[in-house]
């Protein structure tokens, strides 16, 4: 599907990272922020942010409160919970593990020649 251009699960990692850095953001700000971190490499269908945020709310990783934007419009602001912070750590380390495992498999499949 068009939307799944980024690996599944990675969107959580991106949202968690963004919120960990910027503390409190509404949806549009999160989308912009992700775009700037990933330097437009990962193109997100922007709306898919919202189901992801809802799932994260359900799991208790983020909390949402109503607030007003600088232009005085009503918006939902998201922030990390403690569970969300833990999840971030877990996601990061898992990502690294998978990455390491994949690298290892590639290494063993193609023995490196030694001089």
């Amino acid at each position: 599907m068009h939307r799944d251009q980024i690996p599944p699960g990675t969107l959580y990692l991106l949202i968690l990272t963004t919120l960990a850095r910027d503390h409190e953001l509404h949806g549009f700000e999160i989308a912009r922020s992700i775009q700037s971190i990933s330097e437009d490499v990962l193109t997100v269908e922007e709306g898919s942010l919202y189901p992801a945020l809802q799932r994260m709310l359900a799991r208790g990783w983020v909390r949402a409160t109503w607030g007003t934007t600088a232009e005085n419009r009503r918006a939902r602001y998201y922030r990390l919970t403690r569970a969300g912070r833990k999840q971030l750590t877990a996601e990061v380390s898992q990502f690294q593990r998978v990455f390491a495992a994949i690298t290892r498999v590639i290494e063993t499949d193609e023995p490196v020649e030694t001089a």
Partner: protein
Amino acid sequence: MGFFRTLARRLWTRVRREQQVDSIVDEEMQLHVALLERQLREDGMSADEARLTAHRTFGNALKLREECRDAWGWTWLDDLRRDVRFGVRALTRTPGFTATAALVLSIGIGGTTAMFSIASAFLVRPFPAPDPEQLVVVAQRDEHTQTPHGLSYSEYLDYRDQNQVFEGLAAHRNGVEILAGSGADGPAVMQHVSPDFFEVLRVGAALGRTFLSGEGPRRDDAPVIVLSHRAWQNRFGADPSVVGRVVRLDTTAHTVIGVTPECLTFKNYGVTPELYVVDRSDGLTNRRQETFSLIGRLRPGVTVAAARANLSVLTTALGTEYPDSMEHSELWVEAERRARPWPGLARTVALMTTLVMTLASLVLLIACAIVATLLVARGIARQREMALRAGLGATRPRLIRQLMSETVLLAMLGGIGGALVALWATELLSTFAITDGVVRMAYDVRMDWRVFAFTAVATTLTGLVAGFAPALRTTRVDLTHAIGDGGRRASGGGTGQRLTSGLVVAQVAMSLVLVVCAGLFVRSGQNAAAIDLGFRTDELLTVWVDPLAQGYDTEQALRFFRDVRTEVVALPGVRSASWARFPSGFAGSRNVATLDGGAIPETAPVSVSWNRVDPAFFDTVDIPVLRGRGFRDEDSADGPSVAVISETAARWLWPEQDPLGKRFFDASAPERPFRVIGVVADTRLGTNIKRVPALVFLPFGRQLSRSATLQIHTDGPPMALVSAVTDAMRRRDPSVTLFSIATLDQFVYDIGSLKLVRLGITVIGAFGALGLVLAAVGLYGVVAYSVSQRRQEFAIRTALGANAGGIVRLAVGRGLRLTGFGLALGFLAAAGVTPLTTGFLVNVDSTDPVVFGVTGLLLASVALLACLVPSRQAAKADPLAALNAE
């Protein structure tokens, strides 16, 4: 815990905010699109272009909204489904393992469930009436025997009218009368009740009505009868127009007014009545006729303790008001649930239930230990798979969850098997009843929803207990190591060894406890069989009849008894015959006090067991007369009453004196004392063979009471004479009802403590045997497994010159060391558990060294065998093949 929190949050949202999610998300998404549109316009797009691009970039809002709602949905169900599928696949890959583990768990879960069905019947299941916790049972406590006995109707009325704690208090007593005019006539168990009985229970009629408060007990009211649901079905063919039908009970016509609901399983002393009538007997005004059980409904907010205190005050007051009546003993006031099957025995039942539940749990724990051992072994073989999964990103909790769901699945298989085992076992248990052919004392041991709930909980716990440690062990993998060397080295892991060793020690210890308990009961059985009851039990046929209930007057009944005896004695194959109130080995009880320098003052009478017997009795059942004489025909005639007493009775009543010629009296009739004319040897009662009772025999013909038994000493197998004896009786009276006809053997061994000991031997012996088998299986499995792991090592040793004996010693050594630990631990545990059995044992101490010693030896030899078989196989294996295998 995260799972539950998510679940809770989802449920909360589902209830409170499902609509809100939609509107919130809509608002958020609209804002997003608007902001995006503005940004695009600022970047230089036209208004139309910006709107289009913004919507395209954002995506399908409708579909996204749906996804948002799904976020709060039930994705965990998908996870569960995946885990289950994974588990099923893993289990079907190794059908041998699965079958073994499921079988072992079935036995454990089934045994525990079956035992819980007993606990449920006696201690858990509420009385089938509204607000059952308000129901309270009241009985008098016999100081000497600690058994309950009834109250008189007058006493009942006093308590009913003067207490401040009961909303209602009803009286009821058991009886047997002959029902005529139904589809299936014959003797029926009755409940004679006070008119407010059903009102107190708050049980209405399923058909017709129950008694009215004002109904009876006046003699001039038309007698009415309420049928139990069972009687309605079995005796009246569930006739819907039964109300209004007239039937006869003994000699009196009664009108059926109603049928009780099917759920009413009322019991008095473990006996379920078939028919209910308002008591209208002559004895209601006799303060000495103490035959009534009481059941009361507490006022709201009143505790059982408060009721006890209130009734205790009344007891004292009544003692002062009626100083010449029976000494008022303490009352038993117990919640109905704490008085099953009757006050005083409830404690024993609770103890017995605790004992069998403990033993059953031990069997289940052993089963868990075995399955855990198997899982550890299997886990080690699967470390490579685990490493691979971990490498592909599965977290450890995720792996543990997968393995656990596999174990829980296994446990569920065991649970299904267990439910089947339990169904079969409860079927067996429910047939256990104390019965004399008419009256049947039994409890409804059956599978109800509580028992099934118990099975479910036991199953889940089993899965968790058996699976957790192995799952932890299996998922602790070192990635590079496990994948790198093909998972072979990981198998030598110390923790796996330690875990299985611990499991083996626990299994042996628990098995020892089981086998020791079984041993104690088997010894009890041997001892009980060896106890000389003191009278003849073989070659004796007994027949119960009740001519008075059939409308005979005393004169006619006496003639019937005399004629039947004459006819029966004349039959070929009959050596002698005698009438008695109870067959030998059974007795009633009454309180007596002594005259003539005896030890028992009138103010503190003692309870003795009594029987009424005719002159041929002692000869027929072979009880030797030691001093004085037995009865003669003239003893039944009017004149001073005489009695024959047993040695123990003589010792109680007149210690170290000659009892002959001395007098004693029934505490309820001091004006008519009995003179002792003879002393007979002691005999025991079938109801409690451990105790030698004080027995008093009175002449049979002197006063007839309800029902009598004819004992016939036969020349050969007693049952061969059944039809001849029946014919002889029918010649005297074609309509005579024989309540039962059986050998005395059957009576003595089917009733009372012998049957309990036998049940104990059966149930607990079964657990012991199971424990032994399971311990052998467990030990064999562990040794076989560890030997297979060390195959290479053994092969190398053999190659280097070790002989087979050395290898066997090496392999057996570990198993035996573990067994030794297990036995030591087991002896300690057994010493802690066996005191529970004390009350059920016959002439054997709960720490009997013989039982402990033999059990230890037995387990040790079973263990040796279980170790020897796989070790010898390992030693015999071809070392080359073993080395090449990997």
